[in-house]
């Protein structure tokens, strides 16, 4: 099975964000692979490994990482390779600086199609820097394949179908989808492995194809930004929470609170 995992290089979310006008400053800051994408890479690796060891279908196939970003985004691709992915594709082009989610989906779909036949594309539900959450669905549309969003568990993958559990507000849906397809995975779908020492050293030797926009037969017009950020404001500070002094009624008050929040 050929699996493509989309990975994004983002400014380290553990460091204070720096702005470049109304967009996030991306160059010259310490970056990391989006922590959400680690789940995607792990999901891809697990499916490949499961097929390699298990039932019926042969383990042939590869996990390919596809990323769009500045040259520094190579670090995110390497990170995925050191976890165990087989190869990478990085689309870098000055024209793409400041791209919106629509243009990104267009570029990623072109890169995925250029990479060859695929059975499954995996992405995170949303990025940890932009949080639009629109990319996986848009990507599926461009690729002309079905999309299953917010996958919290991959039940099985064989015989051209994928069975997954899909997170909903009050439980989960069991979904079977014919391949090829795009899925977006939540944090919690698995526990991403560390990149081991051997993995890090092996990543050095794995192939990464670097593409520009023209390699994908796309022009600047195709990826023109259609979205404008008109205003930025700080998120409201979280309020300090309510402190309940225990005068004998605290337990009841907490139970009421939890009931109101529909937790119990």
């Amino acid at each position, binding site marked *: 099975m050929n699996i493509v995992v989309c990975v994004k290089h983002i400014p380290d979310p553990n460091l204070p964000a720096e702005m470049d006008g109304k967009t996030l400053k991306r160059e010259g800051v*310490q970056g*990391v692979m989006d922590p959400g994408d680690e789940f995607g890479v792990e999901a891809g690796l697990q499916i490949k490994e499961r097929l390699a060891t298990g039932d019926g279908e042969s383990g042939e196939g590869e996990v390919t990482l596809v990323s769009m970003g500045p040259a520094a985004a190579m*670090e995110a691709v*390497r*990170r995925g390779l*050191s976890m165990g992915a087989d190869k990478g594709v990085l689309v870098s082009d000055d024209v793409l600086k400041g791209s919106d989610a629509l243009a990104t989906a267009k570029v990623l779909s072109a890169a995925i199609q250029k990479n060859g036949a695929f059975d499954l594309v995996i992405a995170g539900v949303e990025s940890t820097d932009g949080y639009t959450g629109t990319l996986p669905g848009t990507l599926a549309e461009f690729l002309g394949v079905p999309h299953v969003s917010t996958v919290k568990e991959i039940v099985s993958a064989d015989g051209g179908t994928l069975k997954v559990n899909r997170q909903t507000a009050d439980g989960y849906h069991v979904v079977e989808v014919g391949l090829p397809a795009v899925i977006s995975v939540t944090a919690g779908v698995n526990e991403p492995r*560390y*990149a*081991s*020492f*051997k*993995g*890090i*050293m092996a*990543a*050095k030797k794995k192939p990464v194809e670097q593409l520009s926009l023209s390699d994908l037969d796309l022009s600047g017009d195709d990826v023109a930004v259609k979205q404008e950020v008109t205003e930025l404001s700080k998120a409201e500070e979280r309020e300090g929470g309510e402190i309940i002094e225990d005068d004998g009624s605290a337990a009841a008050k907490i139970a009421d609170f939890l009931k109101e929040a529909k937790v119990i």
Partner: protein
Amino acid sequence: MPQDIRLLDDEQRALVQMVREFATAEAKPLSIDYEARSEDPKPLYDKLAELGLTGVPFPEERGGGGQPYSTYLLIVEELAAAYLALAIGLSVHTLCAFAINEFGTEDQKKDVLEKLTAGEWFGAYALSEPGSGSDAAALTSKAVRDGDSYRLSGTKVFCTRGDEADVVLVLARTGEAGPKGISSFLVEKGTPGFGGSKKEDKMGWRSSPTWMMSLDDAEVPASRRLADEGNGFKVALASLDSGRLGIAACGIGVAQAAFDEALKFTGEREQFGKPVSANEGVQFMLADMSTAIEAGRRLYRHAAALRDAGLNYSLQAAQAKLFCTDAAMRVTTDAVQLHGGYGYITEYPVERYMREAKALQIVEGTNQIQRYVIGRSLT
């Protein structure tokens, strides 16, 4: 702020990040319980093996990582910032493996070194004795040749993970008094007559077991003698040069951890209507602490770079061990001070760091001995 990794090469940066993830997600949180229970964190050592971190500076044909010592030390520093006892265990293990890689026969490398680099086995180092610490060449444990074996007898003290280790590098006397009568042996766990006889109760490093080891007519095959008879002290000193860099990196790691806590605490704690760190007196302390850490880091990395370039680095290793561990003691003490009363209670981690830093000034040659080594090599 953890160590600045921007100027490292791609692999080093990826390695530090991987170790940092493991350290923050597992080693650091688990360390609290292991320290409280004075229990050796065996599962974490196994995890180090799984991650491929037990043989980083050794040749690939021996199952190692084939990396320069400088790269290995980045890992030690990062681990030490999260869990010093674990970093010390790795450092002692590496010291033992180093000796075999440097002085071992083909068979010893195959049978022992390769198990160590794979992390199937862990190593320890037994030089100190009740009557010989700083004056290590005065050791009195004996090894007497008996056919194809040696019979070892005597007592070793302060052996880190001595009873947990699968193989211990033991120094014992085969000849005349003084350094030239000493030989070194690889003694395996389970050798009859050999084992830990008392586990010390310590001020810090509580989850790094420190053992008194007894050698009671323990039979060790002659094929497990490392280097020629009479060359044991050379093995011991070379290992210590290398090991001291590991201790220096540990010092910087624990100092960094203490500094990070102090910076955070003084920024959050308010007195007189403003954060404590708004006071110049506090800022000057933070300035000195961060400068000492950065200077120490450059010093040990310089010594490591000399080592990696194949140059003599004994002097610089002693300077690095001295400076980095003295800095660790000062920085951790100041970190407690900057926490006020909160620094003195175990709910905050800085009192632990202060206890941990103390031992770094003592092991692998006290800091008085480092000054002695430096002075002697300068004059």
